[in-house]
């Protein structure tokens, strides 16, 4: 297993994919937090001078997730890491690297597990650092609007940890979907369309919208992190467990397909 892990690391380091993933996932969230913080700080300063009618309550520590998870639709780190998760598999299918791997090792499940370990090893520190950095940037940029944000408080660490686990869960889902579909456009359609279009629309178009929304993965993920606004009725921990369960089901199904169903000859 150690050899397979080293092989995955060598593969990841020897193409630009890993550098781009880490770079974008680390830069985008603080950038979005800076933009949001700047806008909120300006409004706070304006209202202090002009006594606005609709004064906004200052955000809490979950504001640090805006560039990571997004608000309603996925943020930068989530998008980048789900794309990375799918690419870990689909790029290898594209260039038959996976077939080459199966020529030198017959343990297909272990090859998939090694990729998952690499994915988690990349996603955990990157998302945690990006979330904490977003909190720091917001605190520095937003001025009085950051009154309730204390970047290094226990609450901020808790939000960063929950955000990290949610992003890892969605990255594992993306890996599972890529392994199940083995097709770049089908995977992209699911990974991009689901959170951006389908999940926001489903509660509106289906009868009993709120009941449906309670089972949607992103609604539960936001509830677990502490971002309010959804119709979810479970406790945050149950919502987190629900998202984790979805991730495990998709991942296990994907790895099983990868291990048991022959790879296409011409992907």
């Amino acid at each position, binding site marked *: 297993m150690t*050899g397979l892990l080293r092989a995955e690391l*060598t*593969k990841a380091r020897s193409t*630009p994919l890993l550098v781009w993933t880490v770079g974008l996932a680390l830069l985008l969230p603080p950038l979005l937090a800076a933009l949001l913080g700047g806008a909120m700080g300006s409004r706070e300063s304006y209202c202090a001078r002009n006594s606005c009618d609709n004064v906004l309550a200052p955000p809490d520590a979950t504001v640090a997730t805006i560039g990571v998870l997004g608000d309603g639709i996925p943020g930068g780190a989530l998008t980048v890491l789900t794309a990375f998760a799918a690419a870990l598999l689909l790029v290898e299918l594209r*260039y*038959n*690297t996976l*077939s080459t791997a199966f020529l*030198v090792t*017959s343990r297909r499940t272990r090859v998939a597990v090694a990729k998952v370990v690499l994915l988690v090893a990349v996603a955990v520190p990157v998302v945690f650092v990006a979330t904490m950095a977003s909190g720091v940037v917001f605190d520095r940029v937003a001025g009085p609007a950051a009154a309730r944000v204390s970047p290094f408080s226990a609450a901020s660490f808790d939000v960063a940890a929950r955000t990290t686990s949610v992003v890892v869960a969605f990255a594992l889902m993306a890996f599972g979907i890529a392994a199940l579909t083995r097709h770049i456009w089908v995977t992209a359609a699911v990974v991009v369309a689901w959170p951006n279009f389908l999940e926001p629309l489903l509660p509106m178009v289906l009868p009993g919208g709120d009941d449906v929304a309670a089972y949607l993965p992103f609604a539960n993920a936001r509830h677990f992190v502490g971002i309010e606004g959804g119709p979810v009725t479970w406790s945050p921990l149950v919502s987190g467990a629900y998202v984790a369960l979805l991730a495990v089901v998709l991942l296990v199904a994907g790895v099983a397909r990868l291990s048991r169903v022959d790879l296409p000859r011409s992907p």
Partner: protein
Amino acid sequence: MTAPHLEVRGLTKRYGHRTVLDDVSCSVPAGTLVGLLGPNGSGKTTLLRVLLGLERATRGEALVNGRPLARVADPARHVGALLDCTWFHPRRTGRDHLRWMSEAAGVRRTRVDEVLELTGLADHGRDPVGSYSLGMRQRLGIAGALLGDPDVLVFDEPFNGLDHAATRWLAELVAERVAAGGIVVMSSHQLAELDPLVDRLLVLGRGRRLFDGPVADVVAGLTSEVLVHPLTPERDHDAIRRAAETAGLLARPDADGTWTFPGATVETVSTTLADAAVPVRHIEQRGAGLSDAYERLVQGQSLPGTPVRTGGGTR
């Protein structure tokens, strides 16, 4: 260490209702270089993929040293394969490609430099594969196959893109492997390159085994022919035709003025033409080669004295 051995037993592979391999069986002992031949779509690549554990058989089995390769913990030490010279990430260097393969296969890292040196790629190891020529990619694929120093090598179209020197190097490499008791399976459409190398043929047609046996068995069953270059082809055309008819020889004029006498000997033809006072610039006996044998096999013609069975069961 036991001698390597390949065995295919009643192998059938279907994709839906389409049968790509139909009850194919063969056995390859140690020290053999097998030419796997057949027209496009005859099932050669499918046979290799099943043998290498990349695809599962619908029925039957393919064994390497007595076991399916998919159940061998360290397949790279048993079989090295080059199936397609496009199986590389273009941004990855040749050295990194071999490095991850060696790590996944559990092969010592110094072996990477050894196979780069062996395949003549040592100076290009740090270049991205996207900058490689077709021949360099072939050599990188061969380097990957050699990583585990296996007893069995499987090459699909290995001569594509190789220049003369590289072709000769590959021929020497596989000859050395076979002389050392290894097994080499080569699938190729370049029969001229295969001809001097292979000592055993496995010919497939429409998923069925058309022939399995020593090359000598196929070639021995084919008649040779005599090729004649007349000094004045146009003037002597009728004279040659009449002389052949008189002597009871088959004669076929070719577009370039030469004449072919199938099944004849140089002595008979030269005597016949001398009697007819036909001046000859050059005369030669041409033996049947792998190409002739292959063409007849895939046309479904049975060859006298060879164990060819076309159609029906292939065991």
